[in-house]
């Protein structure tokens, strides 16, 4: 296996494990979303259909820990992964501002979709989630995501462009 591919797999696996195993304990409200960063990283490197499938599988892992909202994260991450892969084709990682914009939009869309599809919160709690926690989550996830994506091996197209 190519060294670059191995590095990518290890990086993505680390993000998933950290999100599912450690982050939940430190961050009960899910402000930082490492799973979404992993999905965006994959989406920037594969075809849209494969990206959607990856988002679905990662979302299912998260959903299994909250059976009340089972399917909500799978749907949200599938749509986000497909959208990122379709619109950007990996090009967003070349520029810092584009990377940040993609991560922020992906996080807000994912949060809104998950909350609406899960349908577990209503009224003021829903308003607070959408108006306060979703934008805050987008900022935190974007800051961490920009650094995380820089640490992962670049997409193949970008690498060829540098040569």
């Amino acid at each position, binding site marked *: 296996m190519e060294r670059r591919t191995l590095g990518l797999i290890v990086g993505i696996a680390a993000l998933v494990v950290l999100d*599912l195993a450690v982050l*939940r304990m430190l961050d009960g409200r899910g402000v930082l979303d490492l799973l979404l960063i992993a999905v965006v990283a994959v989406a920037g490197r594969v075809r*849209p259909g494969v990206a959607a499938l990856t988002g679905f599988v990662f979302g299912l892992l998260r959903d299994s820990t*909250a059976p009340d909202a089972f399917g909500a994260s799978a*749907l949200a991450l*599938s749509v986000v992964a497909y959208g990122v892969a379709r619109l950007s084709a990996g090009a967003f990682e070349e520029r810092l501002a584009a990377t940040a914009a993609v991560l922020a939009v992906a996080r807000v869309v994912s949060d809104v979709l998950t909350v609406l599809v899960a349908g577990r919160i209503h009224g003021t709690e829903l308003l607070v*989630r959408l108006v306060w926690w979703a934008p805050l989550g987008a900022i935190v996830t974007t800051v961490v995501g920009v650094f995380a994506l820089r640490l992962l091996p670049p997409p193949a197209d970008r690498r060829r462009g540098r040569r």
Partner: protein
Amino acid sequence: MARGARSNDRLDTVLVVACVLAALTLRTLAPVRREPIAQAVRETFVAPLLAGQASVTRSERALREASALRRATDSLTRLAQDAVGLAAENAALRGLLGLAPRVAWGYVTAEALPASTPGGASTRLLSVGAQDSIAPLSPVVTAAGVAGLVATVDARSAVMLTWAHPDFRVSAMSADGSAVGIVTAHTSNRGGEGLLELAGVPFRTLLAPGTAIVSSGLGGVFPAGVPIGTVLRVLSDEGGWVRSYLLTPAVPLPAMSGVLVLRAPRVAAGLDSVWSR
């Protein structure tokens, strides 16, 4: 070449539509059908991570409790040196260290890990499962009182409904036994999230703010005498027949990390003396 690209585009569209349809199907499945799927995913992929997470949580709590334990150890050392009234003092120190010595038997300690899905705050993933002899509807308590109950059990983990879950119910009474009712999570668009509601209290029985509410033992899920919360204010008086009260929960959600899951024989034996001290 163009035909190949079109074919790939079609495949992508088919995949994303399949994923969305599959997710929507899972979302709309009845709990009894979706739980085996969630259980299979949890047991295959998440359980190994959960073991690591539980040990990190335990380490974090151990660090937090280090100073209290150090004080307890110092006191025990002094007691050992004095060798006077050792048994009584030792019991007092054990009381400081938590609920477990009071419950004594028929329980298992667990980490209650919050779900990371937005809106999933009313459930917790427990770090114990069927191999620890817990079963669905096992009560979950902390030193402060009722935390929730076990909904589903896997081999090495379980899903717990906290008291904030819409499906959570516990039959309750005032500590002096003068009023009985059913406690549920309080849900309202006018605020008050994070509170409980005591419904069905006879109109003639008026509960003053601050009155302690405990489980009544009716229904057999929770043993009698476990603190649920304290009365905050009257919520409504429906037609002059019954009143509902708003309660402050005994166990705040953020404080719910280390819990005890009670096994059936312990529930049957009762816990009257545990919280009445």
